[in-house]
Every structure is written in structure tokens, then in C-alpha cells.
């Protein structure tokens, strides 16, 4: 087998993050199996190995090994390279860290957060999907997983502003708001950036993009590379501080929101000097303030809650508030909101090529859900969801429509809005 798997390094890495709550979670599992049914991977595959609790086995074992009182007798649970190799796929390919299992766990164990920690340990051992790791490295080296360097950003923004006749503020010296973007959007759904600019301009916000820190997507976090994760956060913080932003807006990207809103301060060890808002949250604020004038949307739509924004981000209601009185034929999926089925591509899974088949199977759940509502279009506010769905849609040759919430809103802005 692969002798380059460094089990000790994995253990050390995990140990470095053993805090009370993590250990409680590891020790409390009663092996009731309830989490299986909640997991979209298990639901799609029926493979018992996709049970979330099972995915934690090596990490729990490694921890027990450390604290086992009779370890000196050689009685401690053993864990070897082959164990880690077996679990690499389970931890990376078959978990989007969407936290649906957390919602159902009768013990209240937050499995998702353990997986995040476990991934780091696995990477330290020399494991992890190559494409995912490459995306992280690319983020580190080029500022973005998809190679969107500062230079390319400037070119792209200039082109988009021209193309769409929308002012896109970049590198303004001072601004109230620092807008960040996801390179997925820039590369695959550029209209999304345009839409954000339109909306911000419509509301008359004082905003800017910064070439010092623009990439919100954090592949360091997804790939289990803590250093990269931190670096990505530091870039944005530096940029925001440079322009004196009071608010940093995260684009339609789930994990980006999760990392920046809830983890960044902990990564840095200090509170952030600005508020972090998801674009949907910001738009809801605008709407509440009467700064968002929209024409009604008559097409039938349904809304897909991105896990990191809704289930683990707490912004479930903002999206619905935006749709209220706007989408005249809005249909909820079942389940929805915090219990929504995941797209299957979050947590970096989207970037793992070998995971595509399973991902497509998971999307089948989504397709069925949408079809049950009869809605023509499924709207999401996460470009990663959107990308995953697009690919799977193609795989299944599905005819349903997919749309971005921000784009939809931007397209229905009443002309003559509150532009200043």
C-alpha cells in the first residue's frame, strides 16, 4: 500500500485541534444510525459506508488511541495507513459538510465540523483528492482556485462593465462596502457579478471590489489546508481594512459565507473589523429599507437553500423575504429551508472529478423534488450549487430551469431605482 501515508502526522494534526466540543462529539456517538437517512449520499447510494457516523470512525479511533488509559499495554485501538486510505474517499468525496446529519442526530453531534477537522488530518497524512488539493494550491499561488489573478480580475471586470454597461467599482481607495466574488462566477457565470453590481448601484451603495482580496471561495478550507484557508481570509480582511469597509459582502457562494461569516474570526484569533453579509442578506436589508424596487416575477419558481447559508448560516428567511411579493408563483420544495436536501457538490466535492457519478445520483433527489413542485425553474443563491446542478442536469439531460437569485432580482429591477 501507499507507504507515504503518514498516520502519525494525521493524528498530530487532529490533536492540535482537540477541544472540548470536538472530543464530546467524538465520544458521544451511540451508533444509532439515524444520520444515514439524513445523508444525501446514503440516500442516493444506499451504501452503508456513506453513513455519516461511519465516516468518523478513523478519527474517533485515532483520538481514543491517544487517550486510552491502557495504551502502554498495547491495547489501544490500532489505526493504519490502509484505514486512512479507505476513508479518504468517504471524507472527501461523500461529504459536503452540509450538516443535514447534524440536524437529525438525537445526540446533537455536529458531524460536519468533525469532517472539516478530519480532512485537515488526512491532508497532513498526505491524502486528499489531487484536484481538490490543486484548487487549494492554486488559490494560494494565484489568488483563486480557477487561476483568476488580480490582473485577470481587472481585465474581466473592465470587460464586464463595458459589455453590460454597468459601473463596477474596483480598487476604490475607500468604500463602505467591500464586495467579494467567487471565481466560479467570474469564470462561469459572469452575469452574476454584473447582477450584484447592478443591485448595489441600484441601491446607491458605496462599494468596491479589491484586487488585494476578492476571492471569497475558500478552497483551503474545503481541501483541509488550514494555512491556505487562513491566507484566503487574511487577503480579504486586508483588503477590507485597506478600503475601510464596514461591511464585506459575500457573493452567492455557500462555503465562502460560512468561512467568512462564522469561521474567519476564529481562524485569525480576533474579531473581524467589519460585518459579513451574504449578498442575499444584504439585499433583504435593502428591501426592508425600501431601497429595492422590483418588477414582479411571474414564472413558477422554487428555491434551493444552500446548506451553508441556510442550514448552517442562519439566513434561511432572507431569501424568502426577497421572494415575497416578487415571485408570484413561488413553490416550496419538501423538505426545504434548514432541512433542504443538499445539491451534492458542496464542501469541495464539486471539484473532485472522481466523485461526479455519485454527485449526479444525489442531484436526482433534487430533480425529483423540483418536479414534485411543478416549478419551471429552481433558484439558488450559491454558484457552487448552481455549477453542480448544471453539470448534473446535463448528465441527466434534465429539462428544468436553473437560476441565480441575485441575477433574477437584478433582471427585475425597476428602472429609475434609488440610484444616487
Amino acid at each position, binding site marked *: 500500500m501507499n507507504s507515504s501515508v503518514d498516520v502519525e502526522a494525521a493524528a498530530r494534526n487532529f490533536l492540535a485541534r*482537540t*477541544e*472540548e*466540543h470536538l*472530543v*464530546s*462529539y467524538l*465520544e*458521544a*456517538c*451511540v*451508533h*444509532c*444510525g*439515524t444520520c*444515514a*437517512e*439524513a445523508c444525501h449520499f*446514503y440516500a442516493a447510494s444506499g451504501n*452503508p*459506508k456513506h*453513513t455519516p*457516523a*461511519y465516516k468518523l*470512525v478513523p478519527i474517533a479511533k485515532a483520538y481514543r488511541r491517544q*487517550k486510552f488509559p491502557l495504551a502502554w499495554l498495547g491495547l489501544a485501538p490500532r489505526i493504519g495507513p490502509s484505514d486512512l486510505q479507505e476513508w479518504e474517499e468517504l471524507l472527501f468525496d461523500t461529504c459536503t459538510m452540509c450538516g443535514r446529519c*447534524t*440536524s*437529525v*442526530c*438525537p*445526540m*446533537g*453531534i*455536529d458531524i460536519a465540523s468533525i469532517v472539516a477537522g478530519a480532512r485537515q488530518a488526512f491532508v497532513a497524512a498526505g491524502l486528499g483528492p489531487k484536484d481538490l488539493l490543486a484548487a487549494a494550491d492554486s488559490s494560494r499561488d494565484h489568488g483563486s482556485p480557477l487561476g483568476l489573478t488580480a490582473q485577470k480580475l481587472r481585465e474581466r471586470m473592465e470587460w464586464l462593465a463595458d459589455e453590460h454597461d454597468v459601473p463596477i467599482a474596483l480598487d476604490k481607495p475607500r468604500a463602505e462596502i467591500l464586495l467579494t466574488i467567487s471565481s466560479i462566477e467570474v469564470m462561469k457565470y459572469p452575469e452574476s457579478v454584473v447582477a450584484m453590481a447592478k443591485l448595489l448601484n441600484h441601491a446607491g451603495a458605496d462599494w468596491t471590489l479589491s484586487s488585494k482580496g476578492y476571492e471569497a471561495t475558500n478552497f483551503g478550507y474545503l481541501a483541509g489546508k488550514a494555512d491556505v484557508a487562513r491566507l484566503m481570509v487574511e487577503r480579504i480582511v486586508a483588503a477590507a481594512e485597506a478600503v475601510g469597509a464596514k461591511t464585506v459582502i459575500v457573493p452567492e457562494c455557500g462555503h465562502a459565507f460560512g468561512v467568512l*461569516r*462564522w*469561521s*474567519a*474570526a*476564529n481562524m*485569525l*484569533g*480576533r*474579531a*473581524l473589523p467589519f*460585518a459579513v453579509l451574504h449578498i442575499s442578506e444584504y439585499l433583504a436589508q435593502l428591501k426592508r429599507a425600501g431601497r429595492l424596487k422590483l418588477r414582479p416575477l411571474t414564472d413558477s419558481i422554487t428555491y434551493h437553500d444552500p446548506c451553508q447559508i441556510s*442550514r*448552517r*448560516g*442562519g*439566513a*434561511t428567511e432572507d431569501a424568502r423575504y426577497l421572494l415575497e411579493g416578487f415571485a408570484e408563483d413561488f413553490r416550496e420544495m*419538501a*423538505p426545504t429551508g*434548514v*432541512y433542504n436536501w443538499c445539491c451534492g457538490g458542496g464542501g469541495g466535492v464539486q471539484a473532485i472529478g472522481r466523485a461526479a457519478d455519485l454527485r449526479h445520483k444525489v442531484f436526482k433527489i433534487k430533480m425529483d423534488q423540483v418536479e414534485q413542485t411543478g416549478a419551471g425553474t429552481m433558484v439558488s443563491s450559491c454558484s457552487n450549487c448552481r455549477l453542480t446542478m448544471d453539470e448534473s442536469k446535463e448528465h441527466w439531460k434534465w429539462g428544468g430551469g436553473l437560476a441565480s437569485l441575485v441575477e433574477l432580482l437584478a433582471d427585475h429591477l425597476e428602472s429609475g431605482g434609488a440610484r444616487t
Partner: protein
Amino acid sequence: MSLLEFARGPALEIALGAFAFGVAWRLLSLLALPWSRDRSVARPAAPSALAAAAGGFVRRMWPARPFRRSDLWVTLNGHVYHIGLAIVVFGLAQHIQFIKGLFGLQWPNLPTGLVSLVSVITLASLTVALARRVVSPVLRLISTANDYFSWLVTALPVATGLLAQSHLGARYETLLAWHLLSVALLLAWFPYGKLMHAFLVFLTRGETAILYRRRGVQS
């Protein structure tokens, strides 16, 4: 020394010692670990940690609506044997006397017939739980010796208690001794295996609820 004397005396003493040691050890070795401080800014409407933890504890008593179809019977069964065990442990006059002997606390007992009925139901429920563990591929995969042994030491006192109550199979003192020995085994094993979840559940449910509620997640 007769078996009953051994059971009532040294066996229980050792078991209680093992129980107390284990609980103290596991809780302290856990609680004295570093506690991470969440530096993210909580949502303005987030409840206090205590309220969040309490709310979360109650919320997880019952599966949320979307999970009910798959989890209803399992949850129900879990409740049946958990509540059943509580009724049997805290409702039978003899058990109250046991607890009174240890802590000096007592309360009115339930009719013995009712407790016997609950014991039978509890045992049946535990059997269902075991059967599910053995039959379900998921549970088979994630189950360890700890799970099966913990099941055994939980079911044994119920079974031996029923035998003792009904004077079935042997002389009462022998049955009572078995029962007390099985209780001793349960106590001695309790903190070292998964039964410790009885304590940990307060931590895990509470902490996840605090995490979620400060994020504004209603789950």
C-alpha cells in the same frame, strides 16, 4: 458469604466506586480540555447560551418533520425504552428504597403491576432495538462490541428484575442476587462505554444548539 450478601455488599460497592470514578474521570478529562471561544459575531436575536442549550436539548427529543418518516419508529422505540427504563428505575418501590439507601431521597412509588408491565414493554423495545442493530446493514456496519455489550448490560437488569419480581426460575435470594449483580455490572460499565451518553448528551446537544442558535439557525 452468600451470593446475595456479595451482591448487596461488595459487588455494589465496587460497582458504585467504578461508576463514580468513571463518571468523574470521563467528565473531567473532557471538561478540562481547552474550550474554543467563538469570536464570530452572533446574530442580534441569538438567545443566551443557557437558553439555547436548553431549547436544543428539548428540540432533539423528537425528529424534525422532514425526518419523521424515516425516524419516527426508531425514535419512538428509543423513547419507549428510555422512558421505560426511567419508570422502572425510579418507579418501583424497591428501587426507590435502593436510591434512598444511597442518597436519602425518596418519592411515592408506582403500582408494582404497572412497573412490571413497563419492564416487559421495555424489554420488548430493547429487543427491537437490538434486532434492528443486527438486521440493518447501516447499523451492522457502525456497531462495535461496545454497542452490543452496552445493550446487554442494560437489558440484563430488566430481565433479571422481572425474574426476581415474578420469582421465576430460582429461589428469590438467588434471583435478587443476579439482579443486583447485573445492576452492579451496569453501573461498573456505565461510564466506560457508550452508556456515558446519558451524561454527554447534555454537552453535545447543548453545544450544537449554542452553535446553531448564535448563527440564527432554527434547527
